[in-house]
């Protein structure tokens, strides 16, 4: 077995980049800081690819499975003889895959930002934040330990806060970053409770130990602890899933994702397409053996939350006019797909698990491509709204082609990447939960519809749009990532994923049934045709349909009023019932107590002040009176 020690470099390089650019970036010219950023991530990406090659190809299968390795591990905090928090790096198939995804997409975003963020005042700060985020995400996927993943989880939250709020003089951006941080932090409260319960139950925080302990049949038979009618283990898993749902923007913790589009577009490509939002999915995949073995409900909850979020987001995406928001809801929908794929998967063959990870892999490519393409469009048009766009295919040819490839991929049209992964998910769902299968089928139709609505509204629809001060499509640094990602979205589907990734870490055969795939493709094509009818040319059909849909359209446009519900709950209930009394207590009782103590001292000392009057006779009087008094005491008490 070859040594994997060079893996420590992979997270360390972005961290060094963060420190370097953060401390010295202001003094470096823009080109140098950009170059440093790209270079560090580039080296990390090359190392990741090397790791993947070494892990999957060179070392390959050992004793029938891909091994779970821990090249670096040291004990950080020891609680009891068996319970400790260790820091280190753990390698298994999904973490190696995530390494490749994170570093590669990060490299693309770094390259793209060279052109997109050109001329920004705080260029180096932007790059240092990106490096910090990459470091946190790499730490997250390489964690071998529940606590370590929690630490990097929070670090990822902080980095995304910094990046979303990058334009800090815009109040909407500040509010959006606060919202993202608070919602995910709220979810992380439940995550922490889940971690603690899990740690106590399994007597360890290590993933390996937890999995082997909790899946052993001896444990399953003897475990009887319950709380409110459900097994404590189910509670722990559900709480952990809630934490993951917050980060992955599942309903009802999704409210931060659309607002997070206030950040720069390459940031959205990195964070909200490929990396941070899949952290929840990654977490459930990590603990998948425990999820699937535990008796009741946790996996069911994952499945139903996933499918509901997918449908919910798809409906809303049909009505939005801000192109980034459409993409945000699309992300939420696709992550819903990944979640319910995990939810319907079984352990032995794990078709759902494999498809979920495969969809994560391909989704990273085409979603970040979509976001970067949107960035290119926004760069040309200087606006996010669809009404300012239309007929841009003449002006932005490369963006047009790559955007089209990505839309076809996400709609599930063969032979592009999305087709293979989506087909795998639907196949897994059909085997165990037919109801979910039909809902997912309808959702993929809606997906195709709104994606092509977006595509046509940008590139076709109106005959000509006059673009003021159009500089051309963008520099080379913006075009190259688009082309690379476009190519990958086209061919990534042909990777035989099941050979590498499965719940038991053994290579599986990938299923592929032509007959089964007809239904999804047909639905997808139907969606595309409907979108073409409505949106290819500017006619009133879409508007007429919207009016006839009436109330449904309006509530979808307002995101089903979920934000208003949250505002109501926080303002009327939490602030008034909890916040105000707490503030009153703090001001009057706590501060009042302190002030009272202070005032007492002052009053007392003021009254004692007059003893020092400066008059000698008074001092003599006190002296003599004291002597007489003491002698009286002494003589009569002592006698």
């Amino acid at each position: 077995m070859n040594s994997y020690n060079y893996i420590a470099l992979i997270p360390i390089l972005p961290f060094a980049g963060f420190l370097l650019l953060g401390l010295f970036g202001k003094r470096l010219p823009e080109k140098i800081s950009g170059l440093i950023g790209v270079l560090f991530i580039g080296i990390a990406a090359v190392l990741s690819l090397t790791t993947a090659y070494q892990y999957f190809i060179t070392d390959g299968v050992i004793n029938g499975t891909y091994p779970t390795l821990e090249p670096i591990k040291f004990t950080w905090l020891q609680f009891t003889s068996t319970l400790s928090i260790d820091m280190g790096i753990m390698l298994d198939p999904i973490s190696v895959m995530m390494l490749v995804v994170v570093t590669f997409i990060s490299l693309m975003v770094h390259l793209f930002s060279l052109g997109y963020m050109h001329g920004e005042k705080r260029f180096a700060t932007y790059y240092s934040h990106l490096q910090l985020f990459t470091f946190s995400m790499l730490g997250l996927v390489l964690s071998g330990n529940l606590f370590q993943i929690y630490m990097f989880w929070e670090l990822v939250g902080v980095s995304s806060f910094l990046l979303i709020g990058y334009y800090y003089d815009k109040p909407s951006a500040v509010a959006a970053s606060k919202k993202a941080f608070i919602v995910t932090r709220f979810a992380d409260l439940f995550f922490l409770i889940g971690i603690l319960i899990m740690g106590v139950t399994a007597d360890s925080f290590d993933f390996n130990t937890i999995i082997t302990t909790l899946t052993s049949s001896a444990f399953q038979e003897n475990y009887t602890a319950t709380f409110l009618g459900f097994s404590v283990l189910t509670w722990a898993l559900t709480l952990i899933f809630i934490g993951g749902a917050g980060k992955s923007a599942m309903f009802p913790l999704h409210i931060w994702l659309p607002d997070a589009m206030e950040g720069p577009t390459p940031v959205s490509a990195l964070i909200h397409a490929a990396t941070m939002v899949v952290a929840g999915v990654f977490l459930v995949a990590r603990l998948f053996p425990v999820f699937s073995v535990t008796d009741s409900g946790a996996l069911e909850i994952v499945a139903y939350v996933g499918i509901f979020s997918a449908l919910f987001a798809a409906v809303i995406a049909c009505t939005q006019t801000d192109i980034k928001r459409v993409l945000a809801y699309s992300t939420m929908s696709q992550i819903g797909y990944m979640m319910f794929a995990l939810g319907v998967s079984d352990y032995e063959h794990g078709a759902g698990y494999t498809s979920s990870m495969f969809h994560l892999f391909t989704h990273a490519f085409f979603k970040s491509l979509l976001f970067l393409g949107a960035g290119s469009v926004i760069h040309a048009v200087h606006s996010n709204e669809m009404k300012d766009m239309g007929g841009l295919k003449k002006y932005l040819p490369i963006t047009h082609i790559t955007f089209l490839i990505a839309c076809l991929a996400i709609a599930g049209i063969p032979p592009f990447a999305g087709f293979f992964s989506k087909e795998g998910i639907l196949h897994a769902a059909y085997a165990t939960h037919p109801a979910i299968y039909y809902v997912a089928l309808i959702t993929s139709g809606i997906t195709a519809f709104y994606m092509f609505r977006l595509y046509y509204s940008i590139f076709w629809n109106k005959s000509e749009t006059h673009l003021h001060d159009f500089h051309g499509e963008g520099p080379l640094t913006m075009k190259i990532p688009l082309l690379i990602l476009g190519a990958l979205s086209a061919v990534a589907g042909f990777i035989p994923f099941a050979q590498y990734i499965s719940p038991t870490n053994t290579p599986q055969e990938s299923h592929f049934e032509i007959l089964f795939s007809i239904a999804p493709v047909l639905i997808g094509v139907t969606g595309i045709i409907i979108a073409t009818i409505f949106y290819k040319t500017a006619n009133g059909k879409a508007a007429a349909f919207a009016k006839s849909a009436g109330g449904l359209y309006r509530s979808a446009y307002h995101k089903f009023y979920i934000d208003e519900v949250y505002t109501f709950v926080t303002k009327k209930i939490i602030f008034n019932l909890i916040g105000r009394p707490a503030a009153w207590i703090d001001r009057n009782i706590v501060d009042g107590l302190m002030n009272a103590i202070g005032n007492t001292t002052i009053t007392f000392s003021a009254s004692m002040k007059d003893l020092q009057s400066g008059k000698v006779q008074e001092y003599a009087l006190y002296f003599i009176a004291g002597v007489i008094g003491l002698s009286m005491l002494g003589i009569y008490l002592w006698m």
Partner: protein
Amino acid sequence: MNHITITQILFLSTALFFIGVYGLLTRRNMITMLMAIELILNSVNINFVAFNKYLYPENLDGLFFTIFIIAIAAAEAAVAIAIIINIYRNHRSIDVEDNEEMKY
């Protein structure tokens, strides 16, 4: 002389002592305070002589103490007067109540 016991002389000196104390605490003029101090010293003198005569007539220690006290009282009165005159030059008043420099 025999029918005057020591107790009576001690009463006398005690009375003189406490009159002096009262004067020290009550008088506002610095010079009268000095006079009160002289009274106190004199009462102590009487005490010494009385004890010497009635209890230990073979020694002369009480007498010596008395003489020394008189000498010291004289020296102290001189220095006190000098200080009082100095204060008078600065404050134009020898009222004790006006010397409040050591006030808070």
